[in-house]
């Protein structure tokens, strides 16, 4: 399926882009993350949460969504 991946804050600094689309056939969020790590090795040192269709998910969650976001620690307000 075609997945849109969004990057924010210090994560976007590593990827050098705010979003990209990629064709991915894995089942779990963790598989997608491995794929992302293979493109951006230094992301392994970064702290972030993952949202799928705007809801936070765990690594064991099944990929269902069209939109994945990598969210560094929140710092609003």
């Amino acid at each position, binding site marked *: 399926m075609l997945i849109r991946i969004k990057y*924010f*804050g210090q994560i976007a600094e590593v990827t050098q882009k705010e979003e990209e689309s990629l064709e991915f056939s894995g089942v779990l969020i963790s598989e997608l993350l491995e794929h992302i790590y293979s493109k951006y090795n230094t992301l392994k040192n970064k702290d972030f949460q993952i949202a799928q269709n*705007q809801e936070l998910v765990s690594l064991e969650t099944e990929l269902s969504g069209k939109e994945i*976001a990598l*969210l560094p*620690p*929140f*710092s609003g*307000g």
Partner: protein
Amino acid sequence: MTDKKIKNVFRQGAISSEFIGDSIAKHQTKTSIGAHNIFLGQVRADVIDNKTVSAIEYTAYEDMANAKFHEIREAAFEKFELTCMHIYHSLGTVKAGEICLFVFVSSPRRKVVFEALEFIVETIKADVPVFGKEIFEDESHQWKVNN
């Protein structure tokens, strides 16, 4: 007076004192209100390793953030007897000393607004995907983290 439509909480740049003053004035027609409480988040000129923060540049996962603000709003109306509430958060550059978050709650009675405001501000800090980049005077930067 909760409404189901998701509002856009974000404003470009700092939130001006005129805007805040106007918001207060607009509530003078709502005479069931007996107490307002206001939280203003101001950008602090922290000194880190001898460098001073001159501004914070805010970005957000805007769709998710607005949905979260909406959830917080619904939860606050559920939990507290509020007449109305308003939240505004900055995007883009906000200089040290300027306002980046404005939360405004109103109720017939005062005790409610103290509790409600704390709940709302703490939940915003913990749950809303907003990211602050602290810009130093020499134009280097670091990423802010909420405690």
